[in-house]
C-alpha cells in the first residue's frame, strides 16, 4: 500500500489544535504507518518553500484563521496541491475567537495594541512597519489582511473538523475518514466530520422542565447552579441548543454551560442572530403579553452579546459581507 501525504498548515492559531493532533497519541503513530507528514511547521521546522516543493498532497489540514497575507498564500498553496482540504478547529472553520477582531477596523486594532493599552509605553507613538532595511538585509512582516476570516472564505473546504480545540468525537471521525481514504480510496462527502449531526442537547444529561422559561439572565458566578437542570432553565446562557455535539458534553458535565466552540450543525446565516432569536423567545414567555417592555430590558441585560453568542463564529457571521476584500 502506497503511503499518502499529509500536510498541516498553520494560520492564525494559538497552537491548541496542533496539540489536539498530538493528543491522538498512538493513533498518530498509526497514521504515520499510512501517511507521510510532509509539512507541519508547528511540530517541525518547515518553511513555505518546503511545501512549494511537494508535488501532490492527499490531505491538507489547515489550522487557524486567515489573518495575514502569508496565511492567504499558504492556504491557496495548500488547496492547489491537496486532494482533500480539512479545516481543523473552529478558527479555520468559522474564524474563531480571533475573528472577534472584526468588530474593529485594522487600523484601530493596531492603534490599540501599540499605543492605547494602559501597559503600553510608546511615547513616540511608533507603529510597526511592514518592512525595514537593516544594513543590506530586507526584513519584512506579512501584511495583515483587512479582516480575520475562516478558511472557506478563501478556498474550497472539503471537511470541517470544528472545536476549540476539536474534541475526541470529531477527531475520531476525522481519523476514520483518513483511514478510509488510505485503505479504500473513499473520497469523503463534503461537510462536518461528525455523525449524527446533532446539537449538544442530544447528548446532554441534564433534565429539562416542561417549559424552558428564562426569568432573568444570570452569569455563572451569580447563581448556585443545579448540576442536573438545563442551564437555560436556570437563566444561564448555554449555547448547547445551537452547538454540535462533538465534545462528549465535557463542559456540561463540569457544570459549565456550553460556549458554542463547535459551531452550528447547519449552515446558518448568522449563529448569534439565530441564537438570540431562540433565547429571546424564552424570556418570560408565559408572561409575554403583560411584560413587553420589561422583556426588552431583560434581554438588554445580556453582557457582551456578540462575545457571548459569536465567541467562535463571528468571522462567518452576517458581518462577513464587509470582508470580501480579502480576496484582493
Amino acid at each position, binding site marked *: 500500500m502506497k503511503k499518502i501525504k499529509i500536510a498541516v498548515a498553520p494560520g492564525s492559531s494559538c497552537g491548541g489544535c496542533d496539540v489536539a493532533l498530538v493528543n491522538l497519541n498512538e493513533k498518530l503513530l498509526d497514521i504515520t504507518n499510512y501517511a507521510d507528514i510532509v509539512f507541519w511547521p508547528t511540530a517541525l521546522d518547515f518553511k513555505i518553500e518546503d511545501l512549494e516543493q511537494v508535488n501532490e498532497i492527499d490531505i491538507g489540514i489547515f489550522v487557524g484563521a486567515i489573518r495575514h497575507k502569508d496565511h492567504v498564500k499558504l492556504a491557496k498553496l495548500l488547496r492547489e496541491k491537496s486532494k482533500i482540504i480539512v479545516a481543523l478547529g473552529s478558527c479555520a472553520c468559522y474564524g474563531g475567537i480571533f475573528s472577534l477582531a472584526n468588530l474593529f477596523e485594522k487600523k484601530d486594532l493596531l492603534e490599540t495594541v501599540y499605543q492605547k493599552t494602559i501597559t503600553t509605553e510608546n511615547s513616540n507613538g511608533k507603529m510597526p512597519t511592514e518592512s525595514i532595511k537593516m544594513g543590506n538585509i530586507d526584513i519584512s512582516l506579512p501584511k495583515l489582511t483587512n479582516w480575520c476570516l475562516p478558511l472557506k472564505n478563501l478556498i474550497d473546504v472539503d471537511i470541517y473538523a470544528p472545536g476549540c480545540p476539536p474534541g475526541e468525537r470529531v477527531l475520531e471521525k476525522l481519523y476514520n475518514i483518513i483511514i478510509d481514504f488510505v485503505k479504500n480510496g473513499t473520497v469523503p462527502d463534503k461537510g462536518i466530520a461528525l455523525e*449524527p*449531526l*446533532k*446539537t*449538544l*442537547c*442530544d447528548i446532554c444529561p441534564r433534565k*429539562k422542565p416542561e*417549559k*424552558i*422559561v428564562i426569568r432573568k439572565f444570570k452569569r455563572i458566578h451569580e447563581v448556585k447552579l443545579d448540576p442536573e437542570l*438545563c442551564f437555560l432553565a436556570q437563566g444561564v446562557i448555554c449555547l*448547547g*441548543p*445551537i452547538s454540535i*455535539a462533538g465534545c462528549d458534553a465535557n463542559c456540561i458535565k463540569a457544570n459549565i454551560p456550553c460556549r458554542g466552540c463547535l459551531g*452550528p*450543525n*447547519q449552515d*446558518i*446565516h448568522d449563529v448569534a442572530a*439565530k*441564537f438570540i*432569536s*431562540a433565547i429571546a*423567545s*424564552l424570556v418570560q*414567555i408565559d408572561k409575554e*403579553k*403583560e411584560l413587553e417592555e420589561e422583556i426588552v430590558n431583560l434581554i438588554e441585560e445580556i453582557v457582551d452579546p456578540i462575545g457571548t453568542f459569536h465567541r467562535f463564529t463571528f468571522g462567518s457571521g452576517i458581518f462577513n459581507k464587509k470582508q470580501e476584500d480579502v480576496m484582493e
Partner: protein
Amino acid sequence: MKDKLPKERVGVFVCHCGRNIAATVDVKKVVEAISKHPSVVYATDYKYMCSEPGQALIKKAIKEHRLTSVVIAACTPSMHEETFRKVSNEAGLNWYKCEIANIREQCSWVHSDMEKATEKAIKITFSTVEKVIRNAPLEPIKMSVKRKCLIIGGGIAGIQAALDVADAGYDVILVEKLPTIGGRMAQLAETFPTLDCAQCILTPKMVAVARHPNIRLYTLSEVVKIEGFVGNFKVTIRKKPRYVDPEKCILCGDCEKVCPVSVPSEFDRNLKERKAIYIPFPQAVPASYVIDPQTCLGLNPIICGECAEACEANAINYDDSEEIFEEEVGAIIIATGYDIYPKENIGEYGYGKYIDVIDSLQYERLVSSTGPTGGEIRRPSDGKIPKSVAFIQCVGSRDVNHLEYCSKICCMYTAKHALMYKHLVPDGTAYVFYIDIRAAGKGYEEFIKRVQEEYGVVYIRGRVSRIYEENGKLILQASDTLTGEKLNLSVDLVVLAMGMIAKKGNRDVANIAKIPVDSWGFFKEVHPKLRPVETSTNGIFVCGACQGPKDISETVSQASATAAKAIELLSKVEIYHEPIVAEVNPELCSGCKICETVCPFGAIKVVDKIAQVNEILCEGCGSCTSACPTEAIQLRNVKDEQIYSMIEAILR
C-alpha cells in the same frame, strides 16, 4: 440557495385594480420585467383580475401554457387569495401553487412616485415568484367536529348567541361566573333610543335560556382550561358551590329574612344592602337564592344555621362543594362583557369623598323601578330628590391620561339619563357637560335633539375641572368652550359617564383560549372589517363589549354573527385544516425544547429528543421556526430557503 428545483412554468397576472394599482404602478412594465424571470413562461395584465373575465383569463392561461404555478400581483391576500386559489384549482393547479403578490396595500396605496413604486412592485412580484416555485403542492388536513358550542359569559351577548345556536339544533353550554345570567343589561333601567325597559326586553330571553332543551347553563362557573383545536376543544369548567339547590328553592325569601349578615349589593352598585343569602334580582336565572360564602357566617350550622332552619323547602345545603368537569365542544364563543372605568382613578371629581357623585351604572340602578329607591330618584346622601343634576360625559374616555379611546355609548346613555331625570323630576334642571356629541346610529341623533329641545336639558360644551362640596351642594368648576365663560355650577347630584373598559379577567381568558387582546385588554378580532367576530384561533369567536365598546344593538348583532359562525362550523361533516404547518427534520432536531416552550398552541411535544408536531393543533404561526436554533423545524411552504430566496429577489 443551491436548492434543486423541478422545472416550473409560472404564469404572472398583474391586476390594475382599476386605477388603484395602475395609477401608481406601471403594470405593463411589471409584466415586461417579470417575463424575464427564468421560470416565468407567461405574464399579462388586466383591469380587474378578480372579475369574471379576469378569472377566465387566468384559467385559460393555465391550460394553454401548461402552467405549474401562478402569481397574481394584486391586492392583499386577505382579500382575494381564496378567489384566485379557487380559480387556479379549477384549472387543475394545487391550491398552494397560487400565490398573491400584494402590490396594492404594500405598494401602490402607500407610494406616490410612479417610477419607484413600479420598481417596488416588480421586486414584490419577483420575490413571490421565487416563493411559489418552491411551494410544495399540499392537501388540507381533515378532521371531525364535536357538535356542541361553549359560550363564555351570560350577558345579553352570550344569551343571544346561546339562543341562536340552540335554536339551530346544536347543544350549547353557557358558562357564567356570577350566580345569574343577565349581565350588565339586567342592571340598566331603560335603553336608548326607544326607552324600552331593559329588564322587560331581557328577561324573556333569560327565561328562554333557562327553558331551552339544548342549552345547559352553568352559573357560578368559570372555564379554567381550553385544550384541543377547532371542532375538537376539550374544556375544563370549575363550578363553585351555590349552597342552595335551585331545583328545590321556591323563592319564598324566608331565608333572607332571618339572615343576620348585611353587605352592600353588587347588583345595586352598593346603593342598597343584601343579605349573605340572596337573589341578585327577582328575575334572576336560575331562579334561586345563593349563599355568598365570603360573608356567610362560616357556612356552619353551629355558628349560624338560621337560613337552613327557615327554609321549608330544604333547599339549603352547607356541604355543597366545588365541581370540576370537562366538556368537549366544537366551537367557542367568548362574550365576557365589560366593566366601567374605576371612578377612583379620577380624583378631581371627588368620588369617594362626596357620595352624591355617582357613576353611570349607579344612576341606572337609581332610576330603575327595581332599584334601591323603587324608581324614585333620590340622592344617596340624604335621600332627597335632587332639583338639579349635572351629567359629565367622557369621564376617563378620550383622555390621554386615562383611556385614549371613545367609549361610544356614553353620549347616548347620558342623553337617556337626562331624559329619565326630566321624566321623574319635571321641574328639575339637568346639565350635560360634553366634548362632542357622537350620536351615530339609527334614531340616535333624533333622540339627542329631542332631549335637548323637548326636554330642555342644558348641554354645555366643556370639561369639568373640579368638583367640591359646599353647604350640601356640589359645586362644579368648568368652562363653557362655546362662550368662553368660566362656570361655577351648583347642583344636587353629579353623574359621571364612565368609560367602558375591558374586564380584568379578559387577559386570563386570553391566556386560556390562546387568543390575543389589544393594548386595552379587549379581545382582538382577525380583521376589523371583514372578520370582526373571529379570533386568531380557529373556532373561537368573540362578541359584544369584550371586543370593544359597543351598545346593546351592536352587541346583539355581533352575538348573532358569532352564532352564525359557530353554526357554520358545527354543521360541517368534516372540517379542513390548513396544511401550512410546522414540520421537523429529525436529523437536525436535538430536542432542545425551545419550540415546545414557545408554541402558543401546545402543538409541539418533544419525544425521545425529537420534536413532534400535532398538525391539527398547529396554526402555522411560525414562532417555532424563528426560535429553532438549528433550523430543524420549518413551516411548510414558508421554509427558510423560501424566505431567503424571497429576500434575495428583493435585494437584487
